[in-house]
């Protein structure tokens, strides 16, 4: 039981750290919303499952928190994305990654790996 709880705790914490890394590394706002929301929601719920396995008497409150996170995190991020789109923030394109106009012509809307 203790080992299973530790595995869930470690898995959840790893997903939280990877989501934060995605927030740091992704190229624009919409990609950051994706990385932040999906990975961090899974990580938080897994971490809370670990807490509930470690202290089985607390399961009701932990279930409340996990259900609340599962409900609000997608709603919040989709609200942000919709607001940003309506405020005029355009999604990132492959062309934006090319530094010079020549490179941008080479890229031509294909995947970055196809230009070399």
């Amino acid at each position, binding site marked *: 039981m203790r080992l299973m709880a*530790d*595995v869930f705790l470690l898995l959840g914490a790893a997903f939280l750290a990877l989501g934060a890394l995605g927030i740091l590394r992704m190229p624009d706002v919409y990609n950051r919303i994706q990385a932040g929301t999906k990975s961090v929601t899974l990580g938080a719920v897994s971490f809370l499952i670990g807490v509930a396995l470690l*202290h089985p008497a607390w399961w009701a409150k932990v279930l409340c928190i996990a259900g*609340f996170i599962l409900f*609000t995190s997608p709603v*919040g991020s989709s609200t942000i994305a919709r*607001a940003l789109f309506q405020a005029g923030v355009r999604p990132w394109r492959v062309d934006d990654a090319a530094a010079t106009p020549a490179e941008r012509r080479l890229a031509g809307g294909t995947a970055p790996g196809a230009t070399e």
Partner: protein
Amino acid sequence: MTLNALEIAAFTLVGIALLLGLLRLMLGPGAADRIVAADTLSVTATAGIAGFAVFYATPLYLDVALVFGVLAFVFVVAIARTIEANRPGDTEDRA
């Protein structure tokens, strides 16, 4: 209940996640990046407060985590509605 190595590693990873999110919150080129970082950071902090409950072996911190999650959700929705109301070319009067 003393913590074993796996639990210490898990709490350290949550701390790393909080630090990385804080870095994006400070660096973020625009307000949008900061809001997204704050949203992610609030969920991470909710899980971290639940980790506090394990660390101090008291269920009181679970109530703190629940209230923090509710307030963070309200914050995110309020900021998003504010951005949406200030969009360019909006000629209606703003509430």
